């Protein structure tokens, strides 16, 4: 069922496993009907890896992301972050791990309403106990990094969907986490904005940060080095990307193409 497993496993030989799901399943009971969102998923993600998760709608991609992002509990199985099993952790310990090691970009952004971009990005830093001035500086830098240096005071309602997505990314990377998890980060964006977001993620990955992203789009998936296919709550296929797309190059090509028109 799982293909290319040897080559995938081989990739991890010289790198640490930062995130691991072992036999993870998730079952929701709605009106006495059981919905199996995940049915025994095994997944190892190595340090510095860039991984895409693909699959049809409802196949359990978001559920898996939430579980490995420590936002949700599996019904069965365990999750290990940097070698540590989180199953028995207290909610407050989980909060600390989320705060320090994981940056999460939600499919639906999840920014605080009526709160400026700057304040939204500062949010994780508040909870890591950073002082006000340091916080403001880091948040500004993170927003500049996603190209929103001129939108610090804007409220989410005053930003486009793509800009809100980038604020969410800035919030995910402002704590300098070792892992960034992004659920459909390009789902709401046109192809150019999507490429810009992919460039940000690839840049992060080049700096050694582990990146996991969910996408429907095969072209977007190809920006990663490894693609995992989910269907009906199971991993049905894994592949190593042969010719990885580089967002920076594709953006440059797009610009020249536009210039010629």
């Amino acid at each position, binding site marked *: 069922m799982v293909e290319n497993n040897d080559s995938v496993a081989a990739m991890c030989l010289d790198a640490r496993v930062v995130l691991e799901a072992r036999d993870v399943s998730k079952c929701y009971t709605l009106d006495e009907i059981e919905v199996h969102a995940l049915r025994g998923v095994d997944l190892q993600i190595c340090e510095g890896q860039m991984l895409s998760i693909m699959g049809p709608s409802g196949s359990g991609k978001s559920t898996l992301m*939430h579980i490995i992002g420590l*936002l*949700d*509990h599996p019904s069965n199985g365990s999750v290990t972050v940097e070698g540590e099993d989180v199953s028995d952790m207290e*909610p*407050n310990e989980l*909060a*600390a791990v*989320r*705060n*320090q090691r994981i940056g*999460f970009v*939600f499919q639906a952004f*999840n*920014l*605080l*309403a*009526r*709160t400026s971009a700057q*304040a939204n990005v500062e*949010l*994780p830093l*508040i*909870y*890591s*106990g950073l002082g006000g001035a340091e916080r403001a500086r880091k948040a500004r830098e993170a927003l500049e990094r996603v190209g929103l240096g001129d939108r610090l005071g804007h409220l989410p309602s005053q930003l486009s969907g793509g800009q809100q997505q980038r604020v969410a990314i800035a*919030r995910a990377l402002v*704590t300098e986490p070792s892992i960034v998890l992004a659920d459909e980060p390009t789902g709401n964006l046109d192809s150019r904005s999507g490429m810009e977001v992919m460039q940000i993620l690839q840049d992060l990955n080049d700096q050694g940060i582990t990146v996991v992203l969910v996408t429907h789009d095969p072209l977007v998936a190809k920006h990663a080095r490894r693609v995992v296919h989910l269907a009906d709550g199971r991993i049905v296929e894994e592949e190593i990307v042969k010719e990885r797309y580089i967002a920076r190059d594709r953006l440059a090509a797009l610009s020249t193409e536009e210039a010629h028109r």
Partner: protein
Amino acid sequence: MNIFESFRIALRALNANKVRSILTMLGVIIGVAAVILLVAIGTGVQKEVTGSIEGLGSNLVFAFPGNIEESGAGGPGGTITKQFTIEDADLIDRRLGPDEIVVPVIQAAATLKVGNREMRTTVAAGNEYSGEVFAADYVDGRGYRRSEVQAASRVVILGSRVRDQLFPLRDPIGETVDVNGQRFTVIGHVASQGGSLTGDQDNQVFMPVTTAQRLLGTTDISIIIIKAADPENVNSVQAQVERILKPRFGEEFSVFTQAQTLGILSDLLGTLTVMLAGIAGISLLVGGIGIMNIMLVSVSERTREIGIRKAVGAKTYDILSQFVIEAVMLSVAGGVIGIVLGWVGSAALSTVVPTEITPWAVALAFLFSAGVGIFFGVYPAYRASRLDPIEALRYE
């Protein structure tokens, strides 16, 4: 994360949700101010009235038409079938002897006019002994005499507010005043006394009882007041008066000593205070329901906010301290504004009706409103803070 940071987070959250914050505070403000104001009116009126009766002296006996005991707390006016007349007062006076003073009293509304100035007042009328039962402190002039009572002379004495309104710049003594269309001569005016048993004395005019009867076209009088020579004798005087009136009125009259009148009135006024407190309680409840509404309406948004905060690393303590501080700040600020408003309102109203701030009402209103505000601010947050972040984010 320290407590200052929690304060800053709470302030930012309040600021980001101004409408919700203001509406919540409004609920507390309305509840607190309404309770303070209404209870202040109730207490103030009660104190003022009982105080003014006490001021009359403990040797007074009051005879009212109608059976007050039977008509219960409804008080005078319940079942009056036959009114007193001057003859009844004279009869009592003759039978009691020269030591006891008897004053027939009439109270009625009247319109006064001087030139183009006009005002509604109450006429309080008695005989030449009125000064013995109603303390009257003359600024100028004199009270009416026996001869004037017998002749039903059109003489009048002005309360202080009446004088201020009708004669703002002139000395009123000797001037004429139009009472219900008849010409009266002002013979005196009295100093301000504040409210009293018979309403606001400053807003009254005084005249002989016979004059008042003619003016009103009646032979009735309102009540009869008897002053015992010795306070020790009030009970025997009361019994005598009852015996005197019985043959004429059967059971349809009531005689009370000052102490009894005080008791009946405090019961009556106690009921008033309870009623006002009841209305105040309803305002408190309405304010509370308002707070509850705002909080419950915003629960889903706030739960999602908690989901976001937890997702980026907020601990349970961080969430709870933020929401406790938010709720306490809103409730306390609302409570303080409510207290100030209630206070200012009572002070402003005290020109119209006596008010007295009661500490227990302030404390009760404040604790209730603040309690509701804090509970409905903190409890949903407490529940949400125990959810997995993703459940909080999905909350609807």
